[in-house]
C-alpha cells in the first residue's frame, strides 16, 4: 500500500495569514491560529498574570472578549482558544473570590452547612448565566440548584471538571462564589459520602507489620543482573 504524504508548500509555512486583535483596546496584527496567549507573546507581551499551566487545567487565564458588531460578551481560556479576527479582548489578571475557612474533619455532610458557610447560594435566581459562561461547558446552574436541594453527590459530579477560573462568579447576579463552594462540596462528598476504598487498609496494615520488609531488603541488595531477570520474568496482567 502506498500513501502519498501530505506536502506543504513553503510559502504557507513562512507566511501565515494575519488577523487583527484588540488587546485592551489596542490593535495588534498577529498570525492566525495562535492561542490567545501565544498571540499576546507574539505581539510583545511578557506574561506574568493571567497565565499558568497553559494547558486548560489551572484556570488562570480567563479571557473576556467581544467581536465587532456583536453585543454578546464571550468567554475563552487564553491558553486553549485561538485568536479570531476582530476580537476585542482582555485576559483577567485576577478574580477576587474570597473563600470561607472550614474544618473538614468536624463538618457534617449536609446541605445546611454549605448554606451556612455560603448563604448567597439561596439567592440564585436560576438565570443560567453561569452555565453559559463556563469555559469548561459545565452545568453550573444545575450544580447550584442541586446543592440547594441537598443533592451533594450530584453537585460533586457536575462540578468535577471545574478549573476554578472564576468566570461564572464574575457574571453571576447573585454574586455566588461557585468554585469555592464546589471545592467544599466535593471534599464533603469525597470524605463522607463516597464508598470507602476496599483493600487499602489491609495493605497499609501488611506494610506496617513488616510483611514486605525482608523481600524489599533483598531487592535493594540484588545485583542489576538479578533485577533484570526478575523484571524480564514478570507476568503482565491483562487489561480489563
Amino acid at each position, binding site marked *: 500500500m502506498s500513501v502519498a504524504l501530505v506536502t506543504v508548500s513553503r510559502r504557507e509555512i513562512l507566511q501565515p495569514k494575519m488577523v487583527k486583535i484588540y488587546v485592551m483596546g489596542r490593535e495588534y496584527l498577529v498570525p492566525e491560529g495562535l492561542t490567545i496567549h501565544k498571540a499576546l507573546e507574539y505581539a510583545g507581551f511578557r506574561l*506574568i498574570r493571567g497565565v499558568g*499551566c497553559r494547558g486548560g487545567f489551572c484556570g488562570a487565564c480567563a479571557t473576556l472578549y467581544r467581536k465587532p458588531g456583536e453585543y454578546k460578551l464571550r468567554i475563552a481560556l487564553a491558553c486553549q482558544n485561538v485568536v479570531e479576527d476582530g476580537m476585542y479582548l482582555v485576559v483577567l489578571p485576577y478574580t477576587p473570590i474570597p473563600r470561607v475557612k472550614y474544618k473538614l474533619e468536624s463538618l457534617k455532610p449536609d446541605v445546611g452547612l454549605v448554606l451556612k458557610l455560603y448563604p448567597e447560594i439561596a439567592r440564585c435566581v436560576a438565570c443560567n448565566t453561569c452555565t453559559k459562561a463556563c469555559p469548561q461547558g459545565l452545568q453550573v446552574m444545575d450544580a447550584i440548584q442541586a446543592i440547594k436541594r441537598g443533592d451533594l453527590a450530584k453537585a460533586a459530579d457536575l462540578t468535577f*471538571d471545574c478549573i476554578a477560573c472564576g468566570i461564572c462568579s464574575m457574571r453571576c447576579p447573585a454574586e455566588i462564589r461557585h468554585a469555592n463552594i464546589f471545592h467544599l462540596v466535593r471534599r464533603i462528598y469525597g470524605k463522607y459520602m463516597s464508598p470507602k476504598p476496599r483493600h487499602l487498609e489491609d495493605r497499609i496494615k501488611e506494610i506496617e507489620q513488616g510483611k514486605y520488609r525482608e523481600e*524489599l531488603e533483598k531487592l535493594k541488595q540484588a545485583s542489576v543482573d538479578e533485577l533484570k531477570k526478575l523484571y524480564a520474568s514478570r507476568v503482565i496482567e491483562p487489561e480489563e
Partner: protein
Amino acid sequence: MSMCGYPSEIKKLIKYVEETREERLKKPYRRLSLEEREKLLKEWHPDYKPGTKRPLRVGVCKGTVVYNEVADLLEAWPLIDPDQIDLSKVDYDVDVLVIGSGGAGLAAALWAIYSGVSPDAVLLVTKLRLGDSNTVKAQGGIQAADRPEDSPILHFIDTVGGGLFANKRDLVEALVTDMPFIMKWLEDLGAMFDKNPDGSYVEVSGGGACRRRLHCARDYTGLEILRVLREEFLNHDVPYLEFTPAIELLTDPEDGGVSGAVLYNLETGEYYVASAKAVIIATGGAGRLHIAGFPTSNHYGATMDGVVMGYRVGANIVHLDTFQFHPTGVAFPEAIRGELITEKCRSLGAQLVNVHGEQFIHQLETRDVVSSAIIKECAEGRGIITPTGAMGVWLDMPMIDMLRGPGTIKKALPAMYRQFIRHGIDITQEPVLTYPTLHYQNGGIEIDVFSRVLRPNGEPIPRLLAAGEVGGGVHGRNRLMGNSLAGILVFGRRAGITAAKTVKETSTRPKLSLKHLEKYIEELKSIGVPRERRSPILLPDYRGEKVLLRSLRIF
C-alpha cells in the same frame, strides 16, 4: 471559537487507520525483549543523540555530563550581585520556608504543620499563583499497590526496571511502601478518585507496569490532588506569597548549611530576605527549557530554578543527562502543540498507528521506548506531516469507546475530549496526531529517604530539603507513569516531617550570607561565562522577535 478540525489532506489519511482497526482490535501487539528495547533507545531516543550534552565546568559536580540547556543554566551568573543585597534587614523570619506550591510543596507544608510546626511559622513562596504547577496538569493517575493481586514488591520491580536500573533503591522502597498510606491520606482529605460501587478503586495499567495500579480522578488527577491540598493548606492559614519566586538560597558560613532565601516580587522588582531554620525546595521540573529543541507539556514556570539554587550551595546532581520525552504530545493542531495527550488513553486501549494504518509498537511499553518508536517511525517516513511541517503518528482514540463501550471517552477522558473539540476534532470519532513532547525531569538534586539534599560526598547539606520533580534518584533514568504524583507526595510528606525535626534541633537562628556564591562566581569568571547569561530564568521568554529587536528598556 474557530472549529477548524483537520485539513482535508490529513483527513483523507484517516481512512487507513480505520481500515486496520478491526484487525488491530482483535490481536494485541507483542512486547519487546529487554535487548530490543535497548537497541531502540540507543538508536532513536533523544538522550542518546550526540552533541546535545556536555560536562559541567563549574560547581561541585564539575565533569558531570548534562544536557546543554542544563549546563547553560548552571554555568550562569546569579541574578543578584551579592554586594547589593542587604541581609541585615530580614523581611520574613520563619521556621520553615517552602519554595513552590505544587503537590510536593503543599504536602511538605502540611506535614511540617502536622509534625508540630506552627502554621504561622511557615512561609510558602511561589512563582505564579498558588497551585500553578505541573501537578495541576497531571492527568492520567497515581500509582499505589493496594490491590490484592498487586504488591509493593511488584511496584518496586516495575519502577527500577522502568528506570533502567539506575534508581536509588532506598528511595524506591520509600515510594512503594508509603503510597498506600498516601492514598489513605488523600481519602481522608476528601479527594475523589474513580471508584466502583463497592468502593474499590478503578485501576488501569500504566506503561511499564505489570499490574493495574493507576488510580485516577477522570483525567484531572493532578487537579483533584492539587485543589484538595490547596484547600487544606488555606484552611490552616499558612502565610504565603504569590508571584514571588525564590532567586537564591542563603547559607550560614559556619556550617555551609542553608539559612533562608532571597525572594523577588515579579511585579514590583523588589527583593525580600527570608530567614528560616529549614528550607524545602519544591520547585518542580524544567520543561520550559525545551531540552533538545522539543515542545513541552509543562506549565509556564517549569524552568529548573530549584536545581540552579541547590547546585550553587553544593547539592549533588544526578541523571540530568536524561529527560523524559512523553510519547504522546499534541502534534496537531499547532496552537496546542506539545500539550499532553495522557497515557491513560493508551491505558484504556488506544493504539499507535503510522501513516499506513500499521501498529508499530505496543502502546504500553515504557515511555522512553514508545517515544523512540514514534521518532523512528517519523524519521523513516512513516509519519504524517502537518501543515506547519511538524510530524506525528496517529493515536487511535475511537478504539477506546469500541473496546470499553460508548461514552467511555467522555466519562474517563473529559479533559482530552475538551482539548480537541475546542479545535474541531472529535476524539470519539477521529484519531489524533501525536509526537513526543518534553515532559519530565528524570533526575535533579540528589535526596535521601528523609528528603535531605545531599552533597556529592553523600553528606546532607544542613537544613536543606527537597521534594518532587526537582529531586533526583527515585525514578532512575526514566519515570513510570503515575510515579511522579506518587513521588511528590511521598517525599513532600517526608520533607515536611524532617523540616519539623530540623526546626526542633536548631535552637539558634543560622546566620545569613551569600558566601557560597564567592567561589562559584570565581569559577564563572575563570571559564569566561558571558555576563548576560544569568539564572534562574524564572519564566521563558516567548516574545516575538520583531518586538524584542526594537524594545527600549526605559520604563
